């Protein structure tokens, strides 16, 4: 083994260096994948906060409530087109925090009505 490495290093430095680099990159991504896995295995890290890129229907899907609940909270006509929360906030001239608060309040009211009280989206 040592002899093989010396032989390769003598004649194919670049190739061997590339091989070792590829192995290092492999290890890097493997460790990152495991780290993500450990991080996400903790249920408290799984809640998807309401983000500007989300659409009302996506929020409803993510928090497991009917899409009408979120649509009504944001004064959207049922079955209206695709729009993001950022666009709604800009259109209504309010902050995203206010939009998020309105949505969460509506979701919690819906859950209370169905005795499905739970903190945030299901894991």
């Amino acid at each position: 083994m040592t002899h093989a490495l010396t032989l390769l290093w003598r004649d194919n430095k670049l190739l061997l260096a590339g091989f070792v680099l590829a192995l290092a990159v492999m290890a890097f991504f493997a460790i990152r994948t495991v780290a993500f896995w450990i991080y996400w295995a903790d249920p408290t890290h799984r809640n998807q906060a309401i983000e500007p890129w989300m659409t009302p229907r996506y929020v409803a899907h993510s928090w497991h409530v009917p899409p009408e609940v979120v649509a009504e909270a944001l004064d959207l006509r049922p079955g209206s087109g695709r729009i993001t929360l950022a666009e709604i906030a800009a259109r209504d001239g309010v902050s995203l925090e206010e939009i998020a608060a309105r949505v969460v309040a509506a979701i919690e009211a819906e859950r209370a009505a169905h005795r499905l009280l739970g903190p945030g989206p299901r894991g």
Partner: protein
Amino acid sequence: MSDALFELVATYGVWLLAAACFLSCLLVPIPSSLLMLAGGAFVAAGDLEFVTVFASAWLAAVAGDQTGYAIGRGGAPLLDRLAERRPNRADLIARARALVARRGGLGVFFSTWLVAPLGPYVNFVAGASGLGWLRFTLWDAAGEAIWAGGYIGLGYGFADHLVLVADFAANASGFLVAAAVALGLGWLLRARLRKARARALST
């Protein structure tokens, strides 16, 4: 960064997806896999239709690969001239072409989904080395269907955890590409080592 990409998909929908898939097959560095994951998540939410999302990503990717193949084919005479001018390279080029003719179909297939970041290069090589058009197209279309269907399906299935899946897929993809490169270089090194040992024995 992924948030901005998800927002683009939410705003521009399938047209953005098609443009991204087309361009990423031509070496333009666009994270089309993340965009497809987002597309799948918006299908789950009811904001996009599965058929249009899948068709736009798949057809655009196939069209992008066709373009890469055509560019490679256009460059084929360059390869011929190189082989003519340098006889010592001619043998290498002929061997590379024979390898592509023998195994090229499978190479194209796996380069579209399993090691997708290598796909654009494989398209150029396939075109330049004269892999038959029909064979290229059939293997390519089958592979791209797995690529598009896989990412969109993953985004659909894990729509509630889009950020998690995006991180995970990016890491897995990086790992697979590094593994493919390590495998290729390792194979080359083994061949060189054998040759060196044979030479050592004969002297």
